[in-house]
C-alpha cells in the first residue's frame, strides 16, 4: 500500500468517529484534494478490500480495513505522543512529523518507542490518556462522546487510553455498560456528564476516548 493510500485510510477512520456517514466529498474537504483524486484512491482501496463503496457515494470500512486503519492510527498516535510528551515538540509540528514518520518507521523502532512511552507515562497519570490503547472489541458500532447532544443518553462501550486514565474514569463511574447522560456539550468547553447521580466535567481530549452507543438505537 502506498503512503497516500495509508493517509486516505487513516482519514476515513478519523472521519468515521465524527460523522454518521462518510461521503467522497467529506474526504475531499478534509484532505484538501479534489473529488476525482479521492475517487481514484477509493477505487484502489476497494480493490484491496479495505473499504466498501455503498450507493450515494457512501463509504464504509470493512473489517479488514478497520484493523488496518486502527493500526495506522495507533502508530500515528504513539509517534505523536512520543514527539510531544517524550521530546517536547510542539503539537503542530509533531502532528506533521508523525504523519511522515509513520509510513517509514520499522516495527522494531515503533515497539521500542511504545515501551519507552509506557515507562514515561507510568508515573504521570494525567497525560497517559494520550497513549492510545486501541483494544475495544465492540468499537466498530461505537461513536465518540462528542456526538451526544445535550440531554441525550448513551451507554459506555469502551474507554480508550492508558490504564491510568481509565481507572480514574472508572472511579467516577464511567464503566462499560453504564448509562450516562450528556448535560452539556458545547464546543471548546469540557463535557458535562451525569453519571451515577453526579455531574462530572471532563475535558474534550478525554471525552474523545470514551466510546458510546446512543440509547435510542438500543431500543430498536
Amino acid at each position, binding site marked *: 500500500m502506498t503512503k497516500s493510500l495509508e493517509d486516505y485510510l487513516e482519514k476515513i477512520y478519523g472521519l468515521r468517529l465524527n460523522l454518521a456517514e462518510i461521503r467522497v466529498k467529506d474526504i475531499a474537504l478534509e484532505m484538501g484534494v479534489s473529488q476525482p483524486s479521492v475517487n481514484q484512491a477509493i477505487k484502489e482501496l476497494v480493490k484491496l478490500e479495505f473499504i466498501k463503496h455503498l450507493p450515494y457515494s457512501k463509504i464504509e470500512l470493512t473489517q479488514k480495513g478497520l484493523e488496518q486503519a486502527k493500526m495506522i492510527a495507533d502508530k500515528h498516535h504513539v509517534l505523536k505522543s512520543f514527539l*510531544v*510528551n517524550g521530546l*517536547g515538540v510542539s*503539537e503542530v509540528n509533531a502532528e506533521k512529523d508523525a504523519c511522515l514518520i509513520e509510513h517509514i518507521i520499522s516495527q522494531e523502532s515503533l515497539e521500542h518507542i511504545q515501551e519507552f512511552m509506557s515507562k514515561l507515562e*507510568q508515573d*504521570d*497519570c*494525567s*497525560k497517559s*490518556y*494520550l497513549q492510545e490503547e486501541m483494544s475495544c472489541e465492540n468499537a466498530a458500532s461505537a461513536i465518540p462522546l462528542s456526538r451526544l447532544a445535550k440531554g441525550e443518553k448513551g451507554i459506555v462501550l469502551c474507554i480508550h487510553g492508558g*490504564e*491510568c486514565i*481509565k*481507572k*480514574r*474514569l*472508572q*472511579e*467516577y*463511574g464511567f*464503566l*462499560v*455498560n453504564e448509562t450516562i447522560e450528556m448535560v*452539556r456539550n*458545547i464546543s*471548546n*468547553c*469540557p463535557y*458535562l456528564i451525569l453519571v*451515577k*447521580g*453526579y*455531574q*462530572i*466535567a*471532563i*475535558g*474534550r*481530549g*478525554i471525552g474523545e476516548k470514551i466510546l458510546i452507543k446512543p440509547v435510542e438505537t438500543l431500543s430498536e
Partner: protein
Amino acid sequence: MKKIVLLGQPNSGKTSLFNLLTGASQEVGNWPGVTVEIKEGKCRIHNETYTIIDLPGVYSLSPFTMEEKVTRDYLLEHNDIRIINVLDANHLERQLFLTFQLWLLGKPMIIALNMMDEVEQKGVMVDTEKLSSITHSPVAQIVARTGKGLTRLTDMFVLDTVSTQPNHPLLNPEFNLIHPLFSQIRNRIGKDKKDSTLDFQAFQLLLSPDLLDQKQHSLTTSEITELKKSIVNWEQTHHQKLSEYLYQTIYTWTKSIETQITKYTREKPIAQSLDQKMNRFENWILHPWIGVVIFAVVMFLLFQAIYFTGGFLKGYLEILLSAINRGILHLQSPLWQSFLSRALLQGVGNIILLLPFIFSSFLFLSWLEDIGYLSRAAYVMDRFMHKLGLHGKSFIPLILGFGCNVPAVMACRTMETEQEKIKTMMMVSFIPCSGRLPVLLAMCGLLFPRSAGLWMFILYLLGILISVLTAFILEKTLIHSPPGELIMELPPYRWPYFKNNLKSAIQKTKQFLVKAGTIIFLVSVLIWFLSYFPNPSDFGGSTSALGTLGKWVAPVFSPLGFDWRLTVSLISGFVAKELILSTVSILFNQSAGNMTGLFAFFSRGTLLAFLIFQLLYTPCLATVASIKNESHSLNWALFSVIWSSSVAWIFAWAIHFLV
C-alpha cells in the same frame, strides 16, 4: 489514646464532622478537594479522649494525586486506628465504592450517613439497620452541618466492632472469577508476616500492579512481572480486563445495596432544593461567554460587599481608636507618648482599623466557597486556562488566593502533574491576598477618594492579569506542559450555612489579630525604636538609625521616586504585607483613615507607583516558604520573589515616568 480517622469521598462532609467533633474550624467548602492535608484534633466523649484525624477525600484508594497518596499512605502506615466512613447519603452507589475498599483494611469501622437533611427533603428513607447488617458495621445517620444525630454517632465510639474477614463481599460468589488469583497473591505477599492489611494489599495489586510503589508491598520486581503475567492470562481466559471486571462487580454490589436500603416515601419532595432551583440558570452560569461575564459580576459584587460591610463596621473602630489617641496625648513622658501613639496606635492600630474589611472578605469568600460556585467558575475558565497549559482545576487555588496565599499554594496539591502545580503556584503568588488589603484600602482612599471601590477592583484585575501573564510566559519558556485534561465533579448548589461561614471568618480574623499582636507589633516596635533613637527630635528623619540604614537600600528604588522611608516600608512588608501600611503610618505620622499628609512628601504619580509596586512585588515570607515546601525547590521560591519584584519595579517605573 484512641485514634479515629474520618474517611470518605471528596465533598462528603468529613471536615464538617471533624469541626463538629473537635470544635475546630478547618476549611469547609462545597467542592471536592478542600482538605489537602492531614489535620488532627481532640474530642472527649464519655470520659475518654479521642484523637480525630481528618484526611483528604478520595474516590478510591488507588492514589493518583498527591493528596490521595497522603490518605492511602496514612491508612497503611497506621495500625491502631478506627475508621469513620463518611458517606454522602444522596448517592450511595458511588459512595459505597470506597466503603468496599475500606472494609478490606480489616479495621474497626463506623459508617456515618451524612447529608440526611437533603435526603429527607427528597423524600427518601434509608434503612440503616439493613446497611448495618450487610456491612457488619454500626451505621448512624447524621447532618454534619448542624450536628443532628451526632450523639448517636459518638455513642458508637465505645462499641468494639471489627468487621470480620470472612464476611467481606470480595469473597462472595459474585466475585468468584477472581478468587483463585486473589488467594494466590494473598498467599504470596503474606508468606512470612502477619498483617491485617494483606487483603487490602492483594486487592490493590490486582487492581493496579503498576501504580503501587515498592514500599507498599513486599513483592520483588520479578514477582510483579509474574503477577502481571497471571493477570494477562486471566484476561485472556475471561475475555475482559481484570480491572474492568473488578470495578463493574463492585459497582453491581454497591448498586444492589443502594436499592435494598433506600426507598421513596413520597412521590414528590417537600420543597425544591437550591440545586433544583439553580438548574434554570445553569445554562447561563456555564455558558462559554455569559458565564465569564457572570463570574466577573460575582467577583465585582464580592468586592463591593466587602467594601461596603467593611466600611460600615470601620466607622465604629475609628471612634474607639481616636478616643484612645486622645488618652495618649494626656501622657507626660514624651518617650511613652511617642511609643504608644506611633508604635502601637499607628503601627498596630491602623491595621486593626481595617480589620472589618478583612473580616468581611473572609466572610464573603467563605460564603462563595460554600454555595458551590467555585467549581463552576473553574469549568467556565477551563478553556482559557488551556492557553496557559493548565486546566480549569487550577482556577480554584487562584480564587482561594484572595483570602490568603498560603492555603492557596497548598491547594495546588490537587494538581495532577508537577508542571501544573508549579505554574499554578507562580500564578497564586500574584493574587492580591487579604494582607494587601489594608494598604490598598488606604492608598485607594487617598488617591481616588470618590471611586476607591472601583479602583480596588481594577487593581485586583491587574494582579490577576500579571498572574496570567506569568503563567503564559512560563508556558512559553520554562515549563511547557502538554495541556492536562479536566476531570472534576461539579457539586450541587447548597445554601451556605451562615453560622459556619461566620465561625470560619471569626476564626481567621482571630488568627489575623494574633498576627497583629505578635509579628506586626514586634516589627512596628522595631521600626519605632530605630526611628526614635538616637535622635528623638528627628523622629523617622534621616539622622535616625533607620534613616542611616534605609539610605543604603534606597538607591534601588530612587528611579521610581521612592525615598528611603517608602523603601523601608516595602522591606518590612516582606515579613507580612500589613506591615507596609504600619511602617508608612509610623514614619509619616499618618492614620489609615486619612493619609492626605502623604501628598506633602510625594506626587500623585509616585504614590500611584508605590501602590502598584506593593500590589505586585514579592509574596510575603510565609507564602515564599510554602512555595518552597510544596515545590520542594528553593529555586522556584526564589524565582517567585525575583520575578515578581522585577515585574513590580518595571510597572512602577513606567507609571512614575508616565503620570
